[in-house]
């Protein structure tokens, strides 16, 4: 079903599709800017120019891109196995809650060597659990992952708000106790922006995923399941197990994105922290054509778009960049098959 979006062996074709999609999105975005009554050239230029000339804005791009890269990898991993994980939003939410609760529960003097891994583990476990639930339901009951994901997104958001209101939030705010100082990730020196060492985590995740899917039998197994579940089954791969495990891994990656928001920036549980990143992660994965490196580049691009959208807030309404996310996904969904058809028509 998702076959046309999965990365093929043909890198040039994937690059072509991503480029076409990007150009389409820019064109549609320009039309929307014209509709809003501003000159598109001015907005795009201002977006680049303001971001490049201000270390703070540059840092914000990196901060956004870190979360987006991890969420994008989560979606890409599920796509590899033929699953469409739109539950990243909920998995990230579960990760944020678990990460902040663990961090706040640690004694103040906990050294970083202990605090950081335990917070990361909690985030990954919480996200992974939600993911595994979706994958498991798909594998055992045949429940469509898109529907269960949407329901779980809403349920996780509601439950974490409830837990926040009941137990965590302090003094009428929507902010919980601060995490132990040892669990805080160092900031990157970029004009006081929110960019932090979670960026390293994102890059490590990219490398790990790239290694797994190209160099190990696990990766080959999940790619095989994604290509053709029946064929995979016939060579002895348990499709149900792969689906469950891949969704658990995907959820864990999404949960890890909490490190960027909780450990790197806010240092506490906050209502709505990281919201929207999970959904934008879908655009990132599709634009990155499911390839780990592609996802990283796409995360930077969309990070630029969503942080740059704020930087040019005086020129265009910020809703425009929100809308562009949908446009990007649509463009990729169309550009992939279009390029594939053209390649098929080319004389050999």
């Amino acid at each position, binding site marked *: 079903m998702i076959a046309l979006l999965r990365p093929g062996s043909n890198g040039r074709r994937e690059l072509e599709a991503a480029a076409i999609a990007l150009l389409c999105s820019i064109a549609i975005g320009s039309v929307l800017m014209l509709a809003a009554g501003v000159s598109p050239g001015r907005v795009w230029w201002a977006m680049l120019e303001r971001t490049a000339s201000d270390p703070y804005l540059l840092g914000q791009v990196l901060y956004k891109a870190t979360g987006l890269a991890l969420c994008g990898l989560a979606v890409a991993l599920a796509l590899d196995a033929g699953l469409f994980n739109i539950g990243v939003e909920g998995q990230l939410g579960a990760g944020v809650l678990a990460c902040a609760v663990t961090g706040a529960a640690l004694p103040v003097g906990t050294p970083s060597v202990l605090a950081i891994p335990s917070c990361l583990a909690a985030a990954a476990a919480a996200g992974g659990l939600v993911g595994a639930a979706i994958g498991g339901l798909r594998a055992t009951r045949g429940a469509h992952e898109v529907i269960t994901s949407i329901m779980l997104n809403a349920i996780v958001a509601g439950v974490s708000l409830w837990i926040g209101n009941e137990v965590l939030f302090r003094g009428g705010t929507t902010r919980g106790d601060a995490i132990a100082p040892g669990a805080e990730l160092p900031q990157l020196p970029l004009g006081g922006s929110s960019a932090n060492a979670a960026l390293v985590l994102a890059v490590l995740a990219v490398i790990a995923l790239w290694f797994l899917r190209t160099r190990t039998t696990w990766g080959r197994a999940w790619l095989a399941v994604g290509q053709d579940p029946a064929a995979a089954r016939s060579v002895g791969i348990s499709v149900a197990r792969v689906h469950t495990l891949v969704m658990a891994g995907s959820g864990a990656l999404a949960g890890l994105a909490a490190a960027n928001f909780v450990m790197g920036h806010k240092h506490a549980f906050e209502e709505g922290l990281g919201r929207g990143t999970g959904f934008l992660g879908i655009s990132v994965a599709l634009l990155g054509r499911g390839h780990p490196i592609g996802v990283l580049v796409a995360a930077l691009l969309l990070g630029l778009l969503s942080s740059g959208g704020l930087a040019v807030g005086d020129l265009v309404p910020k809703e*425009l960049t929100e809308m562009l996310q*949908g446009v990007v996904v*649509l463009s990729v*969904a169309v550009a992939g098959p279009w390029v594939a058809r053209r390649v098929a028509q080319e004389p050999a």
Partner: protein
Amino acid sequence: MTTERLVRILVLVLAACAFACAGALFYGGMLHASDRWMYGGLAIAVVAVACSFTGILPGSTSQRLAGSIACALAILAGVLETQTHSDLFVAVASSAFGAQVIKIAIPYVLASIGGAITERSGVVDLAIEAKLLFGAFTGAAIAYATDSAYVGVLGGMLAGMAIAALQLGLALKLSADQVIVGVALNLLALGGTRFLLQLIFHEGANSPPCPAFEDAIFANPIFWLAAGAAVIVPLAMRRTRWGLRLRAAGDRPEALVAVGVAPTRARFAAGLVGGALAGAGGAQLSLAVGGFSADMSSGRGYIALAMVILSGWRPAWAAIGCLGVATAEALETQLQVTGSAVPRELAPLLPYVLTLIVVVVASGKSKSPRALGKLE
């Protein structure tokens, strides 16, 4: 009439009684400010929803018998709880609760019938949410501009059709992945309606007030559209050329090709009608309260789709499932009003939890259109 059929009717009748009992308990609970009754009503409604599905879905006779017994026990519990009070019947006679349920159910029903039509023609319809949201926005905007809620309904239907046309064009003409197109359109609708809100009304989250149908049921054309669709669409699917072609496009597109009809055409004919219905459902969202607010569809499209899947892609049954969801939602709203022990953050989750349970229980049992999501 076979035993199987009798049992099936039995469980449905009992489930209907249980629904009535739940509503009555709830109303009684409100009159007496009794939380015990409220929870009783809630529990019975949940049992009734679950049991009516054992009647609807393909399953064994023993499962249906179990459903009937559960319903009967639930009703018995309800009656026992109220035996000392005689206003049970007063509450049943009061139509306010029923009116509330119907008002909530209209968008769900229209969305799920629209979704069932689109999916039966072989197109995965994840864009119901987008049709609802754009229908709601356009409905409110047109009603505001023309100062007539009736014209607003037409606007909502056209908006739904426009989204459907875009969806089908991308999915069928440009062979984009149908699931992804659906999700992308939903994202687009979320951002797009906010963008238009900003562009047209210079508002961030709410449109200015527009003419509304408010609590009227019988004076609301959307109600009649929903009721009519629930009756006519199943008939039309069986009896008209439109219906036969759309079902062929979903089950055996090659047969359609053999008689010289392009499946794509049948799918457009189906999808546009489905889009118009879902768009009208969206218009109900904004025209019932007299204004559009950002993200006002809040996941209803997905719940409607879950009901479509659950009903085995049968529009009338999907509509009944939606009534169940609407009952749950009406109960939950009442719980919030009366201030009960259920935390206010968790009460709105009831429809999602129910849908999740129902999808998990029912998936894999019902038969999807054979060519769903495939081209040609």
